[in-house]
């Protein structure tokens, strides 16, 4: 720990990005935070959230000692009656509760989301060592549920990014990529500015013209929950009207030539069971990996069956722009123009040479993220958007859509790999952890888990189901309940689920809850024991954000940075990793915990944590840095330099041409998983919607679409992000609050000006916003920058906890509006529908 007046490098922790920063500390007091110009993660710049971090460190309402509840009654507005206790009493109490369920570990539920540092990985390891399946590794009820499983089977990495260095035409659908959100935010924001300055066109397809819409060349308002129709119509124009697609890429790098039978399944070679392809070069049917294959047929195929590409072409013909205009409200002429511009900008057949390596050049992409995922049929709202990139051959090549963190060679090698049927199956990730994937999926079976994971064989995320299913256990044949929740400081009560009354009831049903707190947020109000969590400026982390999952793409340097405390932690605080090690020791799982930590962080030989030993977090991080980067790069080296940068080779930056696997355009495995699931749910006597188990996406409306058609409601509420708000993390910050108060859309609700006039609602007026789940008082901000059928709710506000006095009572919590039941859950991904029918009135 350095205490002199000096600049200390560390990593920001005000959101998941983890920018490199330099902190000026004078006499042990932080007086300034700046971006680290040597760190590729943010290239020296910072955002408003990061700058405001100093106020979180010195927040007088921070929790700095363990607390226990004295009021046994729990509820959203119950005073817990906190009493300060010692660390020993807190950990004794938690360990005793863990001991009580030691032989039934499934009764433990761990909310592990703490992605600004190590604790995400450490608490997953802790829960796994204990033996519970109920490990929640994400925070949102929507975000991440589709993008990651799709990206791992169609790109190879965790997330996607337009290649801002070469892209000429980017369509952003339900995302504010590089303009208001996403990983490596400060890096990509500058890349986005450079790209726009050199002429890249940005088209924002979004119900709300927020930061992305305001910067885009064109904002195209779309009715929420109709992304499938938009994407399928774009595909129709490209494939059937314009004939623009990358045939060579489709033939050799996708399953487009795989032949299918009348049942939609692949035709396979008897014996090997390999999918078959018709080779037009010698008019022979061959297995997909036959070395003599020269010209795979993607249209035709003769008596051998129909290629999947032909099925796709035929399928999307059902979605001409005139038909989808009625669904999306996007004029047919606009869609045709966008499709033509996109297809022509793709420069199909062109190449580019980078560092002496010649690569395909496809300077177009469609990017999507949170928006399309948050629907009752969220998988199929999103997947055809990715298909637009695949048919143009614009995946993992210069100018196209790039997969984040998919491959690397240093400090060790990680690379995506092909597998079943020659398709991309194993995603690339620097940590050897099982990646979220939707191919080929798991065998559905009668559930043992309360989140019904077994009935979602293509999903990696399940937690959103818990408030629904925990209270219907008998219906699913479950004979136990969650008896203990252990959580990180994330405010899941208001951010991870929907209907707040249902969520309150779920939390009330859990007999014992313990968790960390930076400040007493709404989730902590339900805690029995609260453990203080240090500020990021007091913490030590080997993983200091999401640069290992969502770094900037392209040829800019790869990086690893650590987080070090820049000030002495407040008395009474402990490093959370050390708390987890102590808890593991107290409940007798320390050896198993170390086994999983060693595996997670690739600690081997003399660097591995040894059973029976106890370590400080500094000792652990020192082992990690030396194991990964050599003994010369120990903790002291990282404390001095903050970051190590490693140049990327061309094949690491643009993996597409170097990937020995095909990408899907047709999801054949959905048929088999659907059939298997039908068998299970029939046996269980469940009425289960299986309509999403299709190899080609259909537009399926959300419940809100029907509600509007029936006239029960007249508007749809959607959520959108603000660049200065990360979840509810840091909301109780006077600087952030000042920005929100001075920004007209932060604490207010966007309403289309013309619609407001018909309702007699004026700008700044307080009105009721009513959904099927609840009714809240909101302030209307009238604007032309929103679809006329939509109400826009920004950020993550609506706090009521007395522990957050600055944020309390400001803005609204969007999630509380959401009906939360199985009808509103995507049956592929488990995403909760985030477009909700509402009424707005005085």
């Amino acid at each position, binding site marked *: 720990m350095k205490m002199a007046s000096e600049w200390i490098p560390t990593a920001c922790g005000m959101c998941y990005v983890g920018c490199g920063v330099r902190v000026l500390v004078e006499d042990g007091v932080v007086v300034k935070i700046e971006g680290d110009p040597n760190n590729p993660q943010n290239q020296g710049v910072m955002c408003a959230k990061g700058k405001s971090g100093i106020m979180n460190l010195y927040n007088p309402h921070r929790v700095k000692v363990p607390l226990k509840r004295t009021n046994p009654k729990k509820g959203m507005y119950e005073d817990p009656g906190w009493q300060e206790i010692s660390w020993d009493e807190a950990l004794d109490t938690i360990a005793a509760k863990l001991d009580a369920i030691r032989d039934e570990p499934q009764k433990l539920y761990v909310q592990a989301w703490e992605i600004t540092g190590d604790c995400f990985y450490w608490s997953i390891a802790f829960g796994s060592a204990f*033996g519970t399946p109920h490990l929640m590794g994400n925070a949102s009820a929507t975000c991440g549920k589709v993008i990651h499983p799709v990206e791992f089977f169609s790109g190879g990495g965790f*997330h996607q990014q337009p290649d801002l260095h070469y892209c000429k035409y980017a369509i952003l659908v339900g995302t504010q990529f590089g303009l208001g959100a996403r990983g490596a935010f400060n890096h990509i924001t500058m890349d986005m500015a450079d790209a726009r300055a050199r002429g890249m066109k940005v088209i924002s397809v979004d119900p709300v013209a927020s930061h992305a819409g305001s910067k885009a060349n064109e904002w195209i308002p779309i009715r929420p929950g109709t992304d499938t129709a938009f994407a399928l119509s774009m595909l129709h124009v490209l494939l059937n009207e314009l004939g623009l697609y990358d045939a060579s890429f489709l033939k050799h790098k996708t399953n487009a030539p795989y032949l299918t039978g009348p049942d939609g399944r692949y035709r396979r070679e008897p014996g090997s069971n390999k999918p078959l392809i018709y080779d037009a070069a010698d008019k022979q049917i061959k297995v997909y990996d036959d070395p003599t294959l020269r010209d795979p047929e993607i249209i035709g195929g003769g008596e051998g069956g129909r290629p999947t590409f032909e099925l796709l072409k035929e399928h999307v013909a059902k979605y001409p722009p005139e038909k989808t205009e009625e669904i999306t409200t996007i004029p047919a002429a606009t869609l045709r123009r966008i499709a033509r511009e996109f297809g022509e900008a793709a420069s199909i057949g062109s190449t580019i040479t980078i560092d002496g390596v010649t690569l395909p050049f496809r300077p177009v992409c469609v990017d999507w993220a*949170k928006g399309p995922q948050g629907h009752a049929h969220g998988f199929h709202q999103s997947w055809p958007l990715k298909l637009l990139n695949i048919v143009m051959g614009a995946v993992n090549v210069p100018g196209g859509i790039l997969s984040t963190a998919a491959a690397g060679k240093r400090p060790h090698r990680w690379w995506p790999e092909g597998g079943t049927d020659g398709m991309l199956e194993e995603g690339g990730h620097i940590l050897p*952890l099982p*990646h979220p994937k939707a191919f080929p999926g798991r*065998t559905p079976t009668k559930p043992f888990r309360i989140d019904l994971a077994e009935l979602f064989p293509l999903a990696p995320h399940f937690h959103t189901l818990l408030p629904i299913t925990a209270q219907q256990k008998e219906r699913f044949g479950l004979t136990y309940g969650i008896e203990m929740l252990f959580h990180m400081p994330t405010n899941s009560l208001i951010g991870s689920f929907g209907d707040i009354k249902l969520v309150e009831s779920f939390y009330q049903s859990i007999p014992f809850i313990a968790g960390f707190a930076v400040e007493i947020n709404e989730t902590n109000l339900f805690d029995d024991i609260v453990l203080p969590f240090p500020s990021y400026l007091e913490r030590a982390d080997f993983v200091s954000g999401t640069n290992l999952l969502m770094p900037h793409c392209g040829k800019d340097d790869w990086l690893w940075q650590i987080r070090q405390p820049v000030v002495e932690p407040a008395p009474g605080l402990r490093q959370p990793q050390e708390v987890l090690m102590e808890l593991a020791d107290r409940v007798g799982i320390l050896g198993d915990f170390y086994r999983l930590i060693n595996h997670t962080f690739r600690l081997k030989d003399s660097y591995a944590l040894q059973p029976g030993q106890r370590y400080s977090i500094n000792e652990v991080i020192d082992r990690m840095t030396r194991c990964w980067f050599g003994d010369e790069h120990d903790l002291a080296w990282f404390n001095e330099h903050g970051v190590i940068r490693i140049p990327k080779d061309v094949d690491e930056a643009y993996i597409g041409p170097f990937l020995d696997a095909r990408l899907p355009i047709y999801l054949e495995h959905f048929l088999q998983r659907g059939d298997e699931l039908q068998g299970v749910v029939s046996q269980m006597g469940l009425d289960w919607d299986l309509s999403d188990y299709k190899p080609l996406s259909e537009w399926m409306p959300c419940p809100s679409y029907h509600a509007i058609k029936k006239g029960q409601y007249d508007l749809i509420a959607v959520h959108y992000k603000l660049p200065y708000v990360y979840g509810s993390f840091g909301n109780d910050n006077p600087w952030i609050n000042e920005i929100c108060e001075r920004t007209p859309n932060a604490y207010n609700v966007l309403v289309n000006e013309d619609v407001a006039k018909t309702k007699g609602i004026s700008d700044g007026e307080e009105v009721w916003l009513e959904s099927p789940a609840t009714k809240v008082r909101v302030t209307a901000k009238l604007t032309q920058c929103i679809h006329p059928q939509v109400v826009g709710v920004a950020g993550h506000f609506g706090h009521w906890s007395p522990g957050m006095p600055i944020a309390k009572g400001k803005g609204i919590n969007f999630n509380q509006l959401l009906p939360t039941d199985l009808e509103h859950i995507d049956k592929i991904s488990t995403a909760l529908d985030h477009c909700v029918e509402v009424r707005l009135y005085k």
Partner: protein
Amino acid sequence: MEKEQLAISVKFMGELRALLQRRTLTVNLPQGSTVGDLFASLSGNYGEPFSSRVFTHSGALQHYILVFLNGQNIKDVGGLAAGLGDGEVEIVMLPMFEGG
């Protein structure tokens, strides 16, 4: 002549610990048995709830199943074909990591 038996000590972690309601187990197998033989034996004992979670449709281990043989990841020592000896097998069912 009957083959000498190996007594394999098995430890379960992750979801399998809850699913099988046990932390440890001793499995007797013939000398020369492999990790694959151990999994076949466990599938026989625990049936579909075990095998449906552990194996892919093509019979490989699911990517979230991690197996250590005397502390070494079996991926580094031959996978399911790795020979068993005296010592311990740890079988871990990890959650897929998430995001968002």
